[in-house]
Every structure is written in C-alpha cells, then in structure tokens.
C-alpha cells in the first residue's frame, strides 16, 4: 500500500458486503477482478465501508469511477449515472464515525485539491438492505450491465482491460 505504482485511474467499488444490495459495488469489483486483467495505470479497489481512509488513493488520480448502491428513486435495479459535480461531495452531520462515507471523502478531496478531473458514479437502486450476502434478483440482474458500463467507461478513458483466459 505504501509503495504502489502511480495509477491515473481509480476504479472504486464501495459498500457493505453483508447487507445484501448495499454491497453491490463490491460484487461488481470482485467479478471484474476475477474476469479481467487491468493495465498498471488502473487501480481496482474494493473500498468496503471505508470513507476518508480512501482519500489517499485519490492522490495523482485523474479519473475516478465509483460503483455503489444509489437511491435514485426508481424501481429496484434501476441504473443511474452521475458525473462531475453531480456526484455528491459534502460534509454532513451523521450519527457515528462509521457513517463517514464517500461524499465526505470527495468533499475533503476538493478542499485538498486532489479532486480528480473526471468523476463518474455508476449506481443501482437497491431493493434489500437486510443482513445477507446475496444480491436481490432485481439488482443481481443488473450486475452484468454494470460490468459492461465499467469496461466502456475505462475504454473511454483510454484503458483496455483484457479478459483473462481461463
């Protein structure tokens, strides 16, 4: 962690793996890592439930691609894509330090002048947030599309992950 090569693009999945759909970002990252080899300039990271601890990974990053469960007001499984300043970045009042999350990280990144040039958030509307390791059928049905969207976005930024031959 202390001496990683400098990545220009950070692919970051976040969420809580044991709360069903809350962990969809992690599911997507896990499947991408199992299926693809990523070029050195792309750092693929399972951010789990960390918030401000992830700030360090933004240093020197030009493109940030986030994958997370997002309340977008649609039906379960509804996909959303937010870009640039539409991605929430703010400091908010919360109950516990365990709530310090991605918007706080992005807020701090702005104040520290390390906010990436391009930020994209790929989200999916969750159905179930109860304790559980499995995704709901509605969200599970969107995982392949999310994976395609991730690969497309990376290509747009000039990266070409290679499918692993198994």
């Amino acid at each position, binding site marked *: *962690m202390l001496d990683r090569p400098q990545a220009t693009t950070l692919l970051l999945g976040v969420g809580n793996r044991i709360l069903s759909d809350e962990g969809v970002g992690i599911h997507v990252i896990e499947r991408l890592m199992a299926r693809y080899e990523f070029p050195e300039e792309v750092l693929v990271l399972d951010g789990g*439930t960390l918030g401000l601890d992830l700030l360090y990974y933004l240093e020197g990053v030009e493109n940030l691609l986030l994958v997370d469960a997002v309340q977008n007001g649609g039906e379960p499984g509804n996909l959303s894509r937010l870009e640039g*300043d539409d991605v929430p970045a*703010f*400091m*908010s009042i919360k*109950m516990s*330090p*365990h709530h310090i999350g991605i*918007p706080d990280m992005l807020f701090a990144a702005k104040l520290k002048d390390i906010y990436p040039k391009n930020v994209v958030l790929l989200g999916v509307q969750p159905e179930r947030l109860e304790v559980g390791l499995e995704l709901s059928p509605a969200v599970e049905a969107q995982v392949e599309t999310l994976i395609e969207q991730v690969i497309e976005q990376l290509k747009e930024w000039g990266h070409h992950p290679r499918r692993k031959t198994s």
Partner: protein
Amino acid sequence: MRAVEDALGIEIPNNARILRNLIEGIQYVQDHVIHFYHLHALDWVDIVSALDADPQATAKLAQSTSDWPKSSADYFKGVKDKLAAYVNSGQLGPFANAYWGHPAYQLPPEANLMAVAHYLEALDWQRDVIRAHALLGSKNPHLQTYLVGGMASPVDPNSQAAINADTIAFLKSLFQRAREFVEKVYLPDVLAVAPFYLDWAGIGGGLGNFLSYGDFPDADGNPWLPSGYILNKDLSKVYPVDHKEIAEYVTHSWYEYDDESKAKHPWEGETRPKYTGPKPPYKFLDTDKKYTWMKAPRLSDHAMEVGPLARMLVAYASGHERVREVVNYVLDQLGAGPEVLFSTLGRTAARCIETVVTAEKLAEWTDELAESIASGDFKIHENAMWDPANWPKEAQGWGHTEAPRGSLGHWVHIKDGKIYNYQAVVPSTWNCSPRDAKGQRGAYEAALVGTPIADPEQPIEVLRTIHSFDPCMACGVHLVDARTGRELNNVHLEAANGFTSPLFRFRVRTNGSC
C-alpha cells in the same frame, strides 16, 4: 482472545503485552482525534461561517493558542479560498444534510476557520500516525495480528522481516508526530472552543455512574488506566469491579428469556431474537414495551456509562497522578471545578485529556519493547495450549479491554473442545442500553433528559450529546441518495413521550468492539 486466554489459563509473553499496549494506545490517539475533527466538530463548528473569517485575525487566534507552525495569515487565507470555491460551486447547499447557520452555533468566524484548517490537517496526520499499526504487523481498521496466547508479529533486531531496530526508530518518530499534533492542535482547539459552549458543561450529564475495566497492563499485570466504578457522581469512592456482578436484561429488548424480570450473567447469557416492534418504516416506538436490539447490561443492578469520561473519572478518583494533572490543567484553563466533567462538554474534554496522556505513554512503551528485545527475549506468543488435547473438558473465561469508546467484555464457555456459549457486551451496549426490568434508563437516555432543543427539525443539541459518547451504529451503511444528494442516516426526531426512537434503531454491529 483474552476470554479464551482466561479460560485456558494462558499468560501471554512480555513482548505481546507491550505490543498490545502500543497498538491500542495509538488506536486511542488516532480514534479520538478522528472522532473530534471528523464527527463531533460539526456539532460545534459552522463551516459556512468560516467564510466570514479574517485570515489575519485567525492567524492571531491560532498563534495565541499554541506554537503550531501552520498558523500564518497566508495559510488560513488559502484554506478560506478553497472553502469559498467549494461553497460557491453550490454543493454545500448551504444546508446539505447539516445545520449550517443554526442558532446553536456560537463560535466566531475565525475559530470556525481555524477548525476547518485543522480538520484538513487531521486527515493527513491520522493517515501517517496509524502506519504504526502496519509496522506492528497489523492493519487498520480491523486489526489482524492478535492470536490466542500473544501476537503474530515477530520481533528480532537482526531480521528485516520482523519488528527490528529500524521499526522501533520509525515508531518513535510517528509517535512524536502524534504527540505534537495532540498537544499543539487538538488540546488547544478543545480549550479554544469550550469557552463558547460552557452552557454544555451543565447539559447531558446523565447517569452519573461510570465504569472502567482498566487496561494497558504493566509487567506486573497492573493496568495503567485503573479499573473501578463510581456511583452518583461521587468521586470520593471508587468501587472494585467484579465481572460476576454484570448481567443483562432483555425486558425492553427484542430478545426473549424464560423469565424477563431477571438479568443473566454473560456466561449464562442467551441471544434469542424476537422482533415485536412495528413494521418499518415507523415513526414511533413504544418505550413501555420492547423497543431496541440492544440488551440492558447492569453492574450490581446499576446502569453504567463507559468511555473516555468514565476512564478519566475512575483514574482521577483513584489518584492517578498524570490524569489528575491534565484534568486539573484543563479545568483551570476553563475556570471550572470537577463537577463540569459530568456533562456533554465534560465527555468531549475527557476524550481529549485521555488522548494527551496516552500520546505521552507511547514513547515509553516503545522503549520498553526495545529493551525487552535487546535483552534477547524474542518470544511473542505462548503456544502450549494451541493443541486442544491440552484443554480441560470444560472451561469458562472472561476477557476485557477498554476499547476507545469504552468497556468491552467477552465471555466464553468452552466444552469438549468447542465453544459452548459466547457473549460480548460492547461499549455501545452499555451506553445505549434501554431500560431494565426496574425501568432504570441507560446512559444515552439519561443524558438526553432535559436537553433544550431550539428547533425540532434540526435537533443538533441531541446530536451533541449522543456524539459526545462516540456511538457505534449501523457500522458502515452509507448509501448515496441521488435525489437529495444526501446520505441516508435517519437522523430525525419525532415528537414523542420523552424522546424518540429512530435514534435507537441500530441495525447491525459488524465487529466486536463497537
């Protein structure tokens, strides 16, 4: 781990004891600073008001509180400019999920700007100092290097793969950095902010009963922070803790016992969930019935507050010399007596005091480790009991520590080489305990009684007191809400008899030290 060590009669080696003290010590320091700047500060600091600050006057204020080098007018102007660029981009709202401009904020703009600058500095600082956890063979958060019988991180001055002389030197530089920030930024900030909120020295006191199991054992097994409990805010008497006097009620919790008028000691403890509350989403919970997933632990049938304030009060009342000195220094600066410690402000001050005294100890413990290794002692774990064939047919143990947010106990019952029963009573179980069979309130409930609230839509006053405890709730649920741009945290207050329930709806505890 300590529960199993207790059950099997394992004594851990000296190096393991010191390593555990070091890891826990820097954890306190990092955790408390993060709590203050990244959670609790927003209860007192109005970021938007910082835009009205005069950088020159901010520099003057900062220089009057300490000789921390980052205190020039240019420096504060830089922070203010970045903040202005951000606020002008429209994202702060200005009310996005916070209470900017709330009348309960009382700091002048310059103090607010100074706090924003230190919030940013704390980010870099905490990232660096917690590298001590990686160096000691672990990671952060969720430490990995502990094992029954000691530690898994090798010590050997001649090995590059072990904790060696270089590691010791690096640790000492990190700990020096940790201490400087605490003494030159954190403590001065608390002392600069507190005078504007002295009314909070009379609010949020709560139970008045305080428990500490004691921790950081020395070579003779005596804890550096002492064990004991205090009743009814009486600092003249510290009672010894007997864990057999701890028992948990479920009278108002969503669990069942055969006889719910009685409490159970954790060795006999049961966790049989039975949800009887309304179907979510709900607006009201009937506190005369069962209303929470928390059990109600009691010590000799007393509800207890745990955490830094409890530890500092038990130490103070036990005559702990260094704790008394720092407590008295802080009280002297605030021009107040020890009675103000029984409050929301007292809880926040006690956390800072504990950070000061702990940061001082880190270098000493590092020297202790260096001496131990230099003497040729490389032992890090005791493995005689790793083979279950050596275990008794049946054994019971209790392990205890003082986690940053308070007293943590684990109880194990081992039978035929397997875990027969395991119960944990974590700090937040004590602090957010519901009522017991006798109707006695837990620490949060008691502390919130009588809290003045200016605007029920924006109950910042409730948050001040709850945050002062360092709550662990719903570990890591942070969904982004794209419609409002808010994270969903269910911070709201419903008009109810007494006070509300959504605050007490804890969904999960995903680790053992919450």
